[in-house]
């Protein structure tokens, strides 16, 4: 079964996301900051990364995604954030944000699972 890394500084989000994913049969590893996240990804080689944007710093998620891509890690990344596009700050996947999917929180279990499935199929896992 596919292994998913959840990297988010909100322990409640990590707990519920983990629980939902596990109930669908996925294996989950997690981290609460970008440095631990990087280590977990290096050590565990997950099939998919679910990554929050604002952790210790407001752009931690972007930097971690860039760092992973620089290291040649091509694992699909599903990025999610509570930043609202309605505030005029436009964030989406682009060259500066090398991710495969960008979602606004909260993400319902159905949407999450649907996106995870799609990305895993695309990634060939």
């Amino acid at each position, binding site marked *: 079964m596919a292994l998913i890394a959840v990297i988010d500084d909100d322990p409640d989000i990590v707990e519920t996301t983990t*629980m*939902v994913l596990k*109930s669908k049969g996925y294996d989950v590893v997690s981290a609460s900051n970008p440095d631990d996240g990087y280590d977990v990804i290096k050590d565990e080689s997950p099939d998919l990364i679910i990554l929050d944007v604002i952790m210790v710093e407001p752009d931690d998620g972007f930097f971690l995604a860039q760092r992973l891509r620089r290291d040649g890690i091509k694992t699909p990344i599903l990025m999610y954030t*509570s*930043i609202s596009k309605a*505030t005029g700050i436009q964030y989406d996947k682009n060259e500066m944000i090398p991710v495969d999917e960008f979602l606004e929180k*909260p993400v319902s*279990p159905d949407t999450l699972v649907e996106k995870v499935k799609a990305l895993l199929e695309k990634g060939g896992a």
Partner: protein
Amino acid sequence: MTEAKPKALVIDDEELLRLGVKRLLELEDYDVDVASGGVEGVEKATSGDFDVALIDLKMPDLDGVEVLRRIREKRPHTVCYIATAYASYETAVEATRLGAQGYILKPFTDDELLDQLEKGVRKRRLELESARLRQEREERMLELATERSRLKTVVNALADGVLVVNYEGKAVYYNPAALTYLGLDDLSLEEPALDKLPEELRRLISQYLDEPEKRTTAVSKQLALKPNYELTIEATCTPAPNPDGSIAGVVVALKNITELKRIEHLKNQFVSMVSHELKAPVAASIGFLNTILDPDTNLDEETQTRFMERAVSRLNSLLTMVNDLLDISRMELKTAVRELKEVNLAEILEETISLFKMDIEKKQIGVDFETEENLPTITADENEVQRLFTNLISNAVKYNRQGGTLVVRAKRAGAYAATTVRDTGVGLKPEEKKKLFSEFFRAKNEFTKGIHGTGLGMSIVKRIVDSYSGKIEFESEYGAGTTFVVSLPIRREEREE
């Protein structure tokens, strides 16, 4: 023009002639004065203002030619005639050279004299009129020049840049501010200016020049001339049409809106942070509820209860945050309703510490509380002061270590009541210190994992202190603790002691 009597001066050493001419002229309505010699003649002619003077050429004291010269020097508009019995070609030339109007041969008939003098008077009047007109014209020119220089002074003094480009794209007018904003050292007039302008501005001006029929109204555009909000200019282009409707040029006004853009950027950042902070607890709570509802998770009752409790807790923190934000907004808009009265600081501090009794006991924190005797009161809203110290002491407890100490001291310091709140807690890293009072700043490190907060507490503290013209200072060492000193002005009557 109401004509005054023409004034004539007769200079002649021959008394009979003087009197004869005087009588004749007076009959013709002249105002006549006489002089019996050259010196007296010069004296009278230069101190009065005569229309015409009749000067005898041969006088014993002063020669008529010299008299003429001296009169002309001082009174160039007095029309002079030389009268002589011995006309010589040389003296005639000399007299004319010196500005005599004419030559009158003695003896002369009444008509001859009158005819000559009348011409002289007319000439003199025409000359005066022309001089007056000339002076008027010069004054107007001067006025115009002053007006032009005044306009230039005004335009040059404007903080806004002004640049006028003609239909050929040449700069025909600009002020120093325009050069500064556009980063140009110099722009000579009549020089093709378009190529020297920033791309966006050039395109905007070109639209007016190339298709004047399409662009007939003013257009403003914001130009980020330097990145990172260093220089943003709002350029407003207004077409200047010729009377026939064709384009004469474009007037460009350049307004520096850098500060405005910077504030706008900060506001956007703030709004985006607020929305993130508000959405995070909502997302977490929805996450808990969705996990409970998801049939696949198949949660046991205990986990379900724990999740619901967490959801309630997150929503409560959301509520606190919303209230804090509303308070900040009220403080910012200065619409907070205040009830100012004499506030006893020592009492408030004591009450506040007792609020945290349970947490203090749980963490086994030693409390060291002391206030100076007869501490002066401060004039303030009691709720706000309570809020201020609740936030400070709450942090000092929350971020303290197990078995640490909390020191609270209040004493008078000049015109202020100074309250010290010291903890032996997490402390701040150097880079965190300048962010301490910013909204949503929360120290995130290995020690602060389980500590909750909105990140608005210290921002509220700072706003309250500032609103009373007080000051807040702090010292902090990472891993050792933080000391705050809040100074609030004491009551005016108690300051002089």
